[in-house]
């Protein structure tokens, strides 16, 4: 096992399947996450993201398949696999008996590290928890508990850090400082795997993105490829007057129509914007302004997963 071998993936999944009763939570998922990547795992609620992360962490038994972390099999070589991995769970959990520092000292010890206080202090500092070091876990706000979870995942300086929706229910300011820290870890060479419901976060941070739905891997591409997938974009046309009549051939493509503005769905590969504009002019629409709106990751996501309620997911999460 050569750790310097760049070709060795940070995480490798092969034919991973997990069933809960009748529910196929993961079905035959195979892909690699490269060393040093900032990797996004997207999918609607219940897609199987957390299940996948539990599988990486050895928190559940697979029905089929195998997973390795930096070459260490999660089952057969579990000690090395777990040393290589830090996991921030989705749910906020804590041990109410202890202070923040005790929590981190115990967690260090579990990984075989004694006298880890220099690193613990740095983590506390970086995560803005220094003044809470001796506070009992119960006394912390939700955002602080979340940051302690991040610190706990990092006590043993794992090469690979997995964050399961770390920003759900965290305010904007905190989110920013959290990402600054995670970006720094990434710059320092850590592999970062992130699941999130905030698609703009993934769009901003991730190099590559996997989209899963109903336990299946739907896509795995670089962010740029995913965005430029040729799946489509929109043509915005503003006319000088109210648009009343639209040529029949475009009727089904109307995404929006308000007064003198109209948005048409277009396919980058098969449509010619010039032809469309010509046809509109021929239908006596006096064009004033034209713009092509490109897809956001959200559009791609919605189209791939058929999930049109991305924005509602968050509010559901908060309730749960």
């Amino acid at each position, binding site marked *: 096992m050569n750790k310097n071998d760049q070709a060795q993936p940070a995480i490798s999944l092969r034919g991973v399947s997990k069933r809960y009763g009748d529910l196929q939570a993961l079905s035959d998922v195979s892909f690699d996450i490269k060393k040093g990547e900032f990797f996004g795992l997207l999918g609607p609620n219940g897609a199987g993201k957390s299940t996948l992360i539990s599988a990486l962490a050895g*928190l559940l038994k697979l029905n089929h398949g195998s997973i390795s972390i930096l070459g260490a099999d999660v089952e057969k070589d579990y000690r090395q696999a777990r040393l290589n991995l830090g996991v921030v*769970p989705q749910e906020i*959990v*804590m041990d109410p008996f202890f202070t923040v520092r005790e929590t981190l000292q115990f967690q260090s*010890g579990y990984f*075989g590290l004694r006298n880890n206080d220099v690193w613990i202090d740095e983590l506390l500092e970086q995560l803005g928890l220094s003044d809470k070091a001796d506070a009992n876990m119960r006394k912390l706000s939700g955002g602080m508990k979340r940051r302690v979870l991040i610190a706990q995942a990092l006590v043993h300086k794992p090469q690979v850090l997995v964050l399961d929706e770390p920003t759900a229910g965290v305010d904007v300011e905190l989110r920013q400082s959290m990402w600054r820290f995670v970006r720094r870890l990434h710059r320092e060479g850590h592999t970062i795997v992130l699941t999130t419901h905030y698609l703009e976060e993934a769009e901003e941070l991730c190099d590559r993105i996997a989209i899963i739905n109903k336990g299946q891997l739907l896509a795995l591409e670089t962010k740029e490829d995913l965005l430029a997938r040729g799946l489509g974009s929109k043509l915005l046309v503003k006319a000088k007057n109210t648009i009343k009549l639209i040529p029949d051939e475009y009727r089904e493509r109307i995404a929006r129509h308000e007064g003198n503005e109209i948005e048409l769905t277009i396919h980058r590969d098969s449509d010619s914007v010039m032809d469309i504009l010509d046809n509109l002019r021929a239908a006596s629409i006096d064009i004033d302004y034209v713009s092509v709106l490109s897809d956001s990751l959200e559009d791609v996501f919605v189209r791939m997963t058929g999930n049109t309620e991305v924005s509602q997911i968050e509010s559901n999460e908060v309730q749960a």
Partner: protein
Amino acid sequence: MNWTATFTLLSKEVTRWRKVWMQTVLAPVVTALLYLLVFGHVLEGRVEVFPGVSYTAFLIPGLLMMTVIQNAFANTSSSLIQSKVMGSIVFILLPPFSAFEMFLAYIGAAILRGLAVGVGVFLLAIFYVQVPVENFFVIMAFAILGSYVMGALGLIAGMWAEKFDQIAAFQSFLIVPLTFLSGVFYSIKSLPPIWYQLSKANPFFYMIDGFRYGFFGQSDQPVLLSLGVMLVATAVLTIICVNMLKSGYKLRDA
């Protein structure tokens, strides 16, 4: 074997009960003393179990052991069910613990809690009545083996249970009856023959009988037999617990 990891988990488990010592140490000590005062007062002079041993003195080792083992059981079972219900069990499941390391840490903490409670009861009880100490090593051996066995049973209960009341049921319907029927308050020789035979099938009886030998040098059954029963129980429960932990029974598939 990672000793740092094992020792850290042990010390976390000990810190857990130490921080709430009123509830985990003082309360059971007080309960045991109340038993001693009430039963000792009511039955003193009416029952003589061993020649030359007062009933209250006879009662002390039984009460001591009962308190020790109930607390050893409570320690592992409540720690596990609590961290399962609250989800903090992931902090134990994510690090590279082997099943045996986890087992040792949990059992170690249960033994230490058992001994802490036992010492508490003993120190207060000897103010009340003189108890001989025939063989200190036998006393310690049975206290440690008893806590070990009960800590292991608590571990099994904690892994199996999904809710607190299932632990309570385990305690009320299994642990408490077996303890009360094991000769804590009487010698099983005083029982009708059928109950005498049944009592001898109760493994808890050997815990208390051997422990009592350590104080009086007298017992119902030979002390080596009791020791043998305890060692077998220890071995069997170790194998069961380590295998359950290794398979992640109700821990790694939740």
